[in-house]
Every structure is written in structure tokens, then in C-alpha cells.
């Protein structure tokens, strides 16, 4: 009840806060709003410029039309990026690595947080704190030992190397989110299931897994974006051309395309499209997912 009441009040925040109708009040309001739009241009135009030049040829980019909409849409840039270079391979690798990382992280984290939030055993609190230590360890710091380790266990020429380490670094955060979520859930449903004679596995899969869906959705988005855009670990772990993910593959485009900006732009647009599309469709969810990450990290 209390929460509903609070929500309804939040909706009309604008009503109660309004700068006065004095001349200066209005002037400031206009200045601030103009500034917001000005920065929106700075924030967005580089991306739009990239999309524009991915459809142009060199003379258009450099001389005739550097800023505006392309005069003709040169789809051949995209065809070139896709067919002549390894973009499809990078794309598939990114998709496989991010997909499997998401699945593994979700499964391991949910199982673990269920064990620490619900089940009774000595050391469950220590285990929870131990795993959440991962939030304070910068990935950059463990690059060297992780590279050695992945080589040592023979994961260095496989996608499994990236997948395991991505899962490991995302586990702490995912477990914290699930833990918080499970703690908020009432236990009555599980009690009822227990009385009906269900064992813990049935109750976990039939009751908990469907109930935590909102947290799962958040974590899928967060982990996917993280894995799709990860650069530092991929940079030290992957050498083989056929195993490179997009962020890594893009690195070497510079050399290949120095004379052909259009195709380079097309490649970058292809690499960015999945995340931009996910964001535009699920913008609120993505922002929530990303900011939950920050809130816990601090």
C-alpha cells in the first residue's frame, strides 16, 4: 500500500516544482533546456556521422559532403565489410561467447544465491561475502595471472577460455542481484510446496525460477552487454583470427581499411547494431540493468 501511495505522488513531481514566472526564471529555463539539446547533439552526432559515412565513398567523406546525409546509399560498403573480411566470423564468435556467458552466469548465480539466501548451512554468509569480493577486484589487475591460467589449462585456443573467465567476473554481481531479490520474496509458496511433498529441486525449478524472472531479465541484458563489449581480457587471451570477438576484430580493421573509410564505418555499424537495437527496444530495462550494476558496485 505504502509503496503505491508513494508511486502516485512521484508521477506529478513536475507539478510542484516549477521555476517562477519571473523573467529571469523563464530565461534560465530556456538556457538550461537549450544546453540539454546542445549536448544531445554532441552526444549523438558522432554516432550519426559514423552511420552517414558508412554509406559514403572517400571523396564524399573527405571533400564533397563530410557532414550530411549520404547522397547515395552505398550498400556495397556493407557487402564489402561482410564478405571480404572476417566480420561474420567475429560476429558469430561474439554471439556465441556472449550467449554462453549469459546462460552460465545466470544458472550458476541463481543456484548459488538460492543456496545462500534460502538454504540453511553453516558458512552461507561467509560464502556470500567471499563471492561478493569480486566486485572490488578490477579486471585489469588479474589480466596476467588469468592469461597464464587459461594457457595452463589448455583453454587458450578455444572459446571456452573467454567464456569461463567472463562467467567468473560476472558471477559476483549476478549473485548479489539474485540474493537481494530472493530475500524480498515471501517463503509461503515454498512452504506450501514443501507441505505438498515437493522436494527442494522441484520447488526450485517450479517456483523460484519463474518468480525471479524480472531479475533474470535485468541480468541477461547486463551480462550480455558486458560480454559483447568486453575488450581487455579478449585482447590478452585470443590470438587466433578465427576466435576473435568483434571488439578485438575491429582493432585490426584500421590497417586493412586505411584507404577505405566507408567499409570501415560499415563494419563498426554492424558491430554496434545489436546493442543499439537492444537498447532502443528495451531502453528502460537496459538503463535499469546498467544502473543497478553501478549501484551495487559502489
Amino acid at each position, binding site marked *: 500500500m505504502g509503496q503505491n501511495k508513494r508511486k502516485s*505522488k512521484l*508521477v506529478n*513531481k513536475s507539478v*510542484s*516544482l516549477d*521555476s517562477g514566472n519571473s523573467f529571469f526564471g523563464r530565461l*534560465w529555463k530556456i538556457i538550461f*533546456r537549450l*544546453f*540539454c*539539446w546542445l*549536448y544531445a547533439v554532441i*552526444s549523438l552526432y*558522432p554516432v550519426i556521422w*559514423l552511420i552517414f*559515412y558508412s554509406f559514403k565513398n572517400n571523396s564524399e*567523406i573527405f571533400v564533397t559532403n*563530410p557532414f550530411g546525409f549520404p547522397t547515395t546509399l552505398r550498400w556495397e560498403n556493407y557487402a564489402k565489410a561482410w564478405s571480404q573480411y572476417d566480420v561474420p566470423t567475429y560476429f558469430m564468435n561474439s554471439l556465441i561467447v556472449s550467449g554462453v556467458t549469459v546462460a552460465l552466469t545466470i544458472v550458476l548465480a541463481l*543456484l548459488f544465491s*538460492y543456496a545462500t539466501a534460502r*538454504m*540453511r548451512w553453516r558458512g552461507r554468509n561467509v560464502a556470500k561475502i*567471499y563471492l561478493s*569480493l*569480486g566486485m*572490488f*577486484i*578490477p579486471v*585489469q*589487475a*588479474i*589480466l*596476467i595471472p*588469468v592469461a*597464464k*591460467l587459461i594457457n595452463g589449462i589448455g583453454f587458450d585456443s578455444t572459446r571456452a577460455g573467454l567464456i*569461463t573467465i567472463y*562467467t*567468473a567476473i560476472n*558471477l*559476483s554481481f549476478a*549473485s548479489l542481484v539474485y540474493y537481494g531479490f530472493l530475500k524480498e520474496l515471501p517463503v509461503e509458496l*515454498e512452504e506450501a510446496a514443501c507441505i505438498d511433498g515437493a522436494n*527442494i*529441486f522441484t520447488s526450485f525449478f517450479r517456483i523460484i525460477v519463474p518468480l525471479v524472472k524480472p531479475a533474470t531479465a535485468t541480468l541477461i541484458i547486463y551480462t550480455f*552487454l558486458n560480454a559483447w563489449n568486453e*575488450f581487455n581480457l579478449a*585482447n*590478452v587471451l585470443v590470438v587466433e583470427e578465427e576466435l576473435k570477438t568483434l*571488439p578485438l576484430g*575491429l582493432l585490426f580493421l584500421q590497417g586493412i581499411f586505411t584507404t577505405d573509410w566507408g567499409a570501415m564505418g560499415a563494419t*563498426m555499424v554492424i558491430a554496434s547494431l545489436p546493442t*543499439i537495437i537492444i537498447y532502443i527496444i528495451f*531502453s528502460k530495462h537496459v*538503463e535499469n540493468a*546498467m*544502473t543497478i550494476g*553501478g549501484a551495487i*558496485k*559502489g
Partner: protein
Amino acid sequence: MKKFYSNKPAIILFAVPALFVFTVFVFYPIVQVFNKSFYDWNGLGTGTFIGFENYTKLFKDTVFKISNKNALIFAGTITIFQMTLASTFALVLSNQRVKGREFLRIAYFIPVVLSVTVVCQLWLAIFNSDSGLLNTIFQRLGINYRQNWLSNRYYAIYAISFVNAWQWMGYQFALLMAGIKSIPNDYYEAAKIDGASTFLAHMKVTIPLLKETYKICLTISLTGGVKAFTEMFIMTKGGPGNSTYTLTYLMYKAAFREFRYGYGMASASILVIQCLIIILVINWLFRDREGRDAKWGRIKEKAN
């Protein structure tokens, strides 16, 4: 119910996989970092124990000094840039009657979902000295201000910091928007009754209530300075000279280019320690003073 929840095989099956993966791939490596920082190690065998020698070498290394200076510049630039802009935009857009609010939100956040490689390549193209966007704009405007943005040893670090600040401003903006959304409207009604202007209401109500959010923002942008790597790696390779080195870049270079793993590990452990110090100091600065203030209040009351 108790029996239901203390199913031993289930506990083991549920808890052990995550603990195992975390221990092997995160915890063991971080222990290795501190341990091997005391060794002279080229990556093969076990190396020889040399005590604090890696650290003393590191503290004398001029590149280490440059790295620390760059961390300060980087952290300072992105903190000032992101904090002021994100606060301004969040406060203005917290008013739901602003036109185009949804569009502006998306415009600010799009760079966040881009891959850092794309962002760096894009800004390399923008900064490009011959045909980059920035120089072309200056040229078309008739301003004679062509620059080789990334090859100036004094300014390259600022250009790089700007790229990071540009990409992640939207993130801090979204954090602050989420924080503002959770402030109950009653406070603003009270402020309005007291005759406060919008500006005053934000200074006295919104910003103090966003303390927790600001703590998070500050932690992210300040540790960002120490952890900065990708932008340097892609855009300048630490150059010109070694003017855009950071601690992470120094570590990377030592281990993966010069095979001085022990030295690299020493830089990595300094990296961890610097991040921890930043987190501790921020937590100390933002510590809850209410308990103490309340106590003072009671003491004052008694005195009166």
C-alpha cells in the same frame, strides 16, 4: 521446513559450482598477483624470490610517475565533465514537462551501449589530423586551428580522457535520474510552500538526498582513472613517447611485451591497492554523519 532447506546434496550442488569458478578464475589469480609481485619471473618456471625489489624499481620508474599523473588527469577530467553535465541534465529533465525528455535520455545513453573499440575508432576518425571531423569543422568555419589532436604530448591525455567522459556521461546521468526518481515528492511540496525557487529546492533537497548516488558516481569515475587502458591501447599506444601511459598500460607492457611478469604483477597489485584506497576514502568522506550530528544536537539542547 528446516529439513527441506538443509538438503545436503542440494546445497553442494547449488553452491559449489559458482564457488569453484570464482575461486579458480578470480580469487586464485588475485592471490597470484600479490604473491608473484615479489618474484623475478619471466613467465616460465617459478621465478626467483627477490623481496620488494620490483616495488622499489617501480617507485623509481619515471613511467610509473607519468602513469600516476595521467591517472589524476584522467580521473579529474572525467569526474568534472561527467558530474557537472550529468547533474545539470538530470535536474533539468527531472521535470517531466520538459519537451523531448525521452529523446534526450536516449541521446545521452547511446554512447554507453557502444563497444569501447568502436568508440575509440570513431574518435580516431574524428581526431584524424588530415581528414578528421574536428579539423574539417574548423576548416569549414574558416578557423585556422588544425591540430594533430593525439600527437601532442601535453594534450593527448586530455583528448583521451574526453573520449571516455563522452562515452560514459550518459551512464552517470542514468544513475542520477534513477536516484531522483526515488525522492518522494513531499519534500518538493514542502520546499515550495517555503517559497523556494527550483534552483534552491534542488540545491537544498535534491542534491543532498542524492548523496548515495554521488558516492557511486565518484567511485566509478575516480577508479576509472587508475584502470584506464583501452583508450590508450587503441588510440595512442601510450604515446607520443610515453606521455599517455597509465598503470594498467604499464602492467600490460611489462608482462605481455617485455615478459617481466613479476614487475607487471607489482604494478597490478599497486593498481588494486590504489582502487581500494579510493573506495575507502570516498566511503570515509561520505560517511553517515547523522549519528554524530544527532548526538551534538542533544548535547546542545542540554547545554541550553
